[in-house]
């Protein structure tokens, strides 16, 4: 039985890497993917605690998070495509206008 702390550390590592990705990368697609990493880290936490407390709720939360990630990816990528069509770029710091 792996102690729960290990899961938490793994989750932490993924979370921090995700945060670094979101903060440092310029490409919006990579930023979105880093967000997926963060969500994934949270999932690990939830499932780990679900086992720890012998309670299925954590897993159900995971399901909701995955659903949410799907929705977010759909909308986020939709925005990227729309943006790309207009500006031909996917870099975050070039998204500097409210309207064009």
């Amino acid at each position: 039985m792996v102690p729960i702390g290990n899961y938490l550390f793994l989750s932490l590592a993924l979370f921090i890497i995700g945060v670094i990705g979101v903060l440092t990368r310029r490409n919006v697609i990579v930023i979105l993917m880093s967000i997926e990493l963060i969500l994934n880290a949270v999932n690990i936490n939830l499932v780990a605690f679900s086992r720890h407390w012998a309670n299925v709720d954590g897993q159900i939360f995971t399901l909701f998070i995955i659903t949410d990630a799907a929705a977010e990816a759909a909308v986020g990528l939709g925005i990227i495509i729309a943006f790309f069509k207009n500006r031909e770029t996917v870099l975050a710091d070039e998204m500097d206008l409210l309207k064009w």
Partner: protein
Amino acid sequence: MTPAQISQYAFYFFAALAVVGAIGTVTVRNVVHSAIFLITSLLATAGIFLTLGAQFVFAVQIVLYVGGIMVLFIFVIMLVNLDVALHQMQFKRRWWVAGLLALALGGQFGAVIYYSRAGGVLEIPAARTGALSPQNVQQFGLALFEKYALPFEIASVLLLVALIGAVVMTKKRV
């Protein structure tokens, strides 16, 4: 080698894979490679779910995350694939500030987790045993459709909204 041992080794293997994949995701220059690393990381996470006995979440993780969301990502990457983007600067100019901030955050969380170990200041109560069988699909389903029926419906509405939003945004002529 007992099943428990196997699951222990599996955990370390998958954990290492997940971290490597994650690091690859945020550091690699080519976006498609980035996505491949992310897929690796997500698959490793699925493996970790397996070591935690969450079979259903494992399957959902693969079907939805890997088979669905990541395919969508790669699809979009290919649609907007610009060779130009490869030669541009991949990181923001003050990336080290962000990195330091993130590491500080990580340190803080790490400390918390460290102190939550058995005998630590913020000790997590010991695991409850029993109750959750490893083959818990039925439990899972019952909980989902009884206790969490309303959130489930809300999630479906959320998906619908996202669907419509995505369609509207990518439509050519509005």
